[in-house]
């Protein structure tokens, strides 16, 4: 390698400083994005896509039914009433299904919420497509107001046959304080 200094020790040290700086950058430039990409691609942690599904399925598979369950959880300190109107649906793979969650803000002030989805079993993540979801955006609600939050989804025709039940869980977070910053919606 090129000599950086006449003192070989300073030469070595300079190269090592570069390595250390690169390892620091590695955390932000490689580890964090790679983690998110891997989680999206492999459906690890039950993370679902933050974007609406736009492809078209090749017809409805009438031969089998899949049970889809809905679960809602409030994160610590979140005062909203939040839950599904229907807790269980029987759906055919390939069909477009709709359901509605209800949210109400019991406090007298306006708040902003973000729902974070998670699909279980994690193998099913790649086969559970949301064409429309309230979780794609932050949900503002005036004090004392109520809202119907729509969800539209398709279970993929290629869902492995041994998966008979899929659970979609939402955790709702209070993001009023952080809503001014840029927040990735997932």
């Amino acid at each position, binding site marked *: 390698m090129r000599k950086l200094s006449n003192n070989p*020790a300073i030469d070595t*040290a300079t190269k090592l400083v570069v390595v250390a700086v690169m390892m620091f950058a590695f955390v932000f430039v490689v580890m964090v994005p790679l983690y998110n990409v891997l989680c999206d691609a492999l459906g690890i942690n039950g993370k679902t896509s933050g974007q609406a599904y736009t492809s078209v399925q090749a017809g409805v598979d009438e031969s089998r039914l899949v049970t889809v369950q809905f679960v809602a959880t409030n994160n610590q300190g979140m005062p909203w009433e939040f839950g599904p109107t229907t807790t269980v649906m029987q759906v055919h793979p390939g069909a477009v299904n709709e359901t509605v969650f209800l949210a109400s803000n019991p406090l007298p002030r306006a708040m902003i919420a973000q729902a974070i989805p998670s699909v279980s079993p*994690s193998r099913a993540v790649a086969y559970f497509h949301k064409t429309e979801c309230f979780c794609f955006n932050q949900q503002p609600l005036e004090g004392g107001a109520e809202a119907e939050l729509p969800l539209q989804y398709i279970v993929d025709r290629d869902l492995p046959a041994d998966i008979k039940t899929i659970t979609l869980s939402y955790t709702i977070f209070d993001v009023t304080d952080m809503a001014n910053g840029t927040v990735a919606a*997932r």
Partner: protein
Amino acid sequence: MGDHHHGPAKGLSRWLFTTNHKDIGTMYLWFSFAMFILGGTFAMIIRAELFQPGLQLVEPAFFNQMTTLHGLVMVFGAIMPSFVGLANWLIPMMIGAPDMALPRMNNWSFWILPPTFLLLASTLFMEGGAPAAGWTFYAPLSTTYAGPSVTYFIFCIHVLGLSSIMGSINIIATVMNMRAPGMTYMKMPLFVWTWLITAFLLVAVMPVLAGCVTMMLMDVHFGTSFFSAAGGGDPVLFQHVFWFFGHPEVYIIILPAFGVVSQIIPAFSRKPLFGYDSMVYATASIAFLSFIVWAHHMYTVGIPVAGELFFMYATMLIAVPTGVKVFNWVTTMWRGSLSFETPMLFSIGFLVLFTIGGFTGLMLSIAPADFQYHDTYFVVAHFHYVMVAGAVFSMSAAIYFWLPKWCGRMYNETMGKTHFWISFIGFNVTFFPQHFVGLAGMPRRIPDYALQFADFNMISSIGAFVYGLSQILFLYNVIATIVAGKPVSDPKVWDGAEGLEWTIPTPAPYHTFETPPAVR
């Protein structure tokens, strides 16, 4: 500066402005011993609280601060600086160099440590108390739910990382550029080899820890959401980043200890180290493997089965080079003319107890079994067998082995052996029962426990007090040696010791190897 070459400066400025590797090594060693006592005090508070079930002495919030600070102070304040101190003293003397390659940076990397730990300890008196999220400070416990002290903690970690990186760069620069003519890499003493590899590990992973706490800082103060699910982040990401640092960190702590016993066991077996080359390659393999096993700390977070299997097999693979090392040490002793002075006793104690810790590590590496062991006292027992009986025992061995060389006075052998036996018994009484309560399901980091664990916990606490007190004997022996030990003047203090550091006069002069020695 030409006329300053014959001895140290006088007074306090000698220590503040010194660039002498021996002075800096001494300061590192004393500082780490002070931190060992501080971290030990925290441990005594923990064991006193756990002496009986129920809440006895301290509030749960304070108990959490104690477990957290105990871990942080022992890892970053006691063990790591102690080995850096040893490296400072020994590496130039072992490779025939006059000093470290970058002496002024050396001074700086030491002197930023004491203020940092003062700052960390001062958080105990803050409103809201010291950091209490455990030494692994998992988010969001350490971000969303942390007190104001988290910012001080983050700053401390940054500075400690800086100190470690500078120390490591110095060691690498010294070993690569300042070896005496003829001292090829494969002739270097194993302590130098293990430290060279450790230093590379430090340069690679301390910046990752810095990145990790930087993300925490941004989450806490600047509205980012690296670890906050509400903003699209992920708490599990924290664990991946932390353990990408944390697992190599384990080897950063233990590799220099391997180096120490690899010097001491041959000296008291009066035989050269068996399998020198394989020792070097085993050390390098362990260092490489340490980068691809981090998720074995996270089996229970819900990683895919393929991931669990990969990390399980990769972790088990580490047992192979580690086994090579253990067998080499045993084979070195085989048919040697052994004698059992204090350094040898501590080295054999290391060998036996570290191997037990290695076996429990293998048990923990089995992913399905780990779901039972995870976060129990079994884990606590495991890592204290490798950290205390591994790193701390080897450090004690090193002090007894090289102290006569450094100060020209012999320690009291009876007192040394007494220290060893009290330590050995106290340590095992403390930590062996923790295997049992851990297997039975006692969770770690909790100030109270179910009644069926009461007896073993009381035994454990008694052992801890014994072990803690034995370190006072150690301190006394070291001071008594320096002040009034029996003078020794033979360059080769131990008849079986080999290496360049035993060719210079005893006590080691302030400046050594100003002209490089000839290496055969």
